[in-house]
């Protein structure tokens, strides 16, 4: 026993486990402890780095929930969606309307806004009944524009271009109105969403998703209800991104349609491609990467604006261009994303120094 090299499974249970070794479990405990400690040490870290790291951490958390949702649809079921930015907007607006106009508590509005987003997402997923991925990309792109139009023009419902203001939620009388308090709400949901995604992909449903992605004709022959699972995948995915939207709305407190553009949809897709399609950890890496990249880009931006005073006009497009370039480079050179690269690095060290 003590001389074995590598991980050997002696029962199905151990092979299906999420964390297969004591080493991995130990790291998870450490990560969890770090997540708990982090908000209390964030201030000095932020001071050293010159930004509000807790704010960034919250954004990353919200991003992770949305990215896990999109990854279920695109990474696992193989359905590309260019409308997830708008579905996130649906969640945000639904939550705002439910809490501010109907007076529902946040804790009811949060899952309900996910449901509203899921219904909208499933409606636009209907064309997937007869059509393959590329048509769906076009259908969801249309969804993006239609939803954004509704957000801007249905003034009686959404406040039009003025947007809507939202109240911070409260937890048994404690208002979650600071970065630190909100952090615990966000990360509780992040852990929930991640565990949910991971477990869903290990279940019958998740295997059906993967079968549809890999070869949907074979999946159908094997008795998988292709259309049903596609729509289900659309629903679950939009639900999660809708919840992310609701969380976002109650964090930034003012929402408008300008945030939920096709640019956001593309960023979500970019994050899961850069992180790793069809990988739960990949969505996390992607979300972290996409949130921190603009912060890192500030350094060259600052330098640029000193050399050239007109730089601020191109800064936002510079950011978008960098995202675009990264996506293209990742697709050509590392199509499986950061998660795959990380596994490669781990595999290299596993056998070091005899790496072959």
């Amino acid at each position, binding site marked *: 026993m003590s001389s074995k090299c590598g991980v050997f499974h002696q029962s199905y249970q151990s092979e299906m486990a999420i964390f297969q070794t004591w080493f991995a479990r130990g790291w998870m405990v450490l990560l969890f402890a770090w997540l708990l400690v982090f908000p209390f040490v964030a201030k000095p870290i932020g001071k050293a780095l010159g930004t509000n790291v807790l704010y960034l951490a919250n954004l990353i958390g919200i991003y992770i929930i949305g990215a896990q949702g999109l990854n279920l649809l695109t990474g696992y079921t193989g359905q590309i969606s260019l409308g997830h930015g708008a579905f996130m907007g649906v969640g945000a607006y639904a939550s705002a309307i439910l809490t501010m106009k109907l007076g529902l508590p946040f804790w009811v509005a949060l899952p309900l806004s996910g449901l509203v987003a899921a219904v909208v997402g499933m409606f636009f997923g209907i064309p997937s009944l007869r059509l393959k991925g590329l048509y769906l990309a076009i259908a969801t792109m249309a969804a993006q524009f239609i939803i954004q139009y509704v957000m801007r023009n249905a003034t009686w419902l959404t406040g039009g271009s003025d947007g809507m203001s939202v109240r911070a939620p409260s937890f048994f009388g404690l208002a979650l109105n600071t970065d630190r308090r909100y952090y615990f709400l966000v990360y509780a949901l992040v852990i929930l969403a991640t565990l949910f995604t991971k477990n869903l992909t290990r279940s019958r449903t998740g295997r059906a998703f993967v079968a549809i992605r890999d070869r949907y004709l074979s999946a159908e022959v094997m008795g998988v209800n292709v259309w049903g699972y596609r729509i289900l995948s659309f629903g679950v995915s939009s639900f999660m991104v809708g919840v992310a939207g609701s969380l976002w709305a109650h964090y930034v407190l003012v929402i408008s349609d300008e945030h939920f553009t096709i640019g956001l949809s593309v960023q979500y897709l970019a994050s899961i491609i850069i992180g790793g399609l069809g990988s739960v950890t990949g969505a996390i890496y992607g979300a972290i990467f996409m949130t921190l990249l603009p912060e890192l880009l500030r350094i060259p931006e600052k330098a640029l604006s000193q050399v050239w005073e007109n730089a601020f006009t191109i800064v936002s*497009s*510079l950011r978008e261009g960098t995202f*675009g370039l990264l996506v293209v480079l990742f697709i050509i050179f590392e199509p499986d994303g950061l998660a795959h690269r990380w596994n490669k690095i781990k595999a290299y060290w596993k056998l070091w120094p005899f790496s072959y």
Partner: protein
Amino acid sequence: MSDGIWFFLQLLVQGLAVGSVYSLVALGFVLIYKASGVINFAQGELLMLGAYACLAFLVQAHLPLWAAVGLTIVTMTLVALVLERLVLRPLIGEPVISIIMATIGLAAVFKAATAAAWGTQLLSFPAIFPDQPVHLGQVIISQVYIWTFCTAMLLMIAFALFFKFTRLGIAMRATANSHQVALSMGISVKSIFALSWCISAVVSAIGGVLIGSINGVNITFSDFGLKVFPAVILGGLDSIPGAVIGGLVVGILENLSGGYLSRTFGGGVKEVAPFVFLVLILMIKPYGLFGTKEIERV
């Protein structure tokens, strides 16, 4: 005739002119899709790039119109060749998602490059066409629209003849039909891919110049290219006549809804109507008017 009919005719004629440019760009889109199966989300950016390049040659380099258009065509051919060689060719055989995402990424890169080079403000073309409007009954059409329509139609007729009669055109059709058969007949499928990108970029650029001369160009100009999606979905994704008819229909539809519905539904209705139309078609007749129905056998 009553005013209502003249108003309708006015909208119809303008819609036809804009629609003819949609047809042109949709033609470029379908060419790429037919030849290589790539859904090109950067079609609008090619159009924008073409318009900006032509503008630069006209205004910044003070070239005459024919030289500017000629240089634009050369530039866009080069851009398309580089693009095809560096980005699309390594992706042959990759899953659809990767290819779609690569073109979306390219679109973002093009947009950023354009903003960096020319800024984001509205630039207007010098008058290419005479600006005296033409009166047809009570319909007033500025000459730009007529020239746009005629140029687009001429180009499309030229392409129809090209596909029908020239060796290269027939080779392209063969490639679209089956890569294997085309290869076995001695056609270089790779160069056909490159050629289809070149033609697509050039026709989009010409479309860009035509539309740019109506309204001027700015950084949101590339959104114009998104209208090819309703057009090609209506016509059928792999049908060239479908793209032409789809473009015209979308142009007319867009203008009519802008004219009649914007009072009830607000200003953006003109932009969003084609997309509502698109979703409806996808739900009712997903392969469009002339598209090939995919029948899959195991």
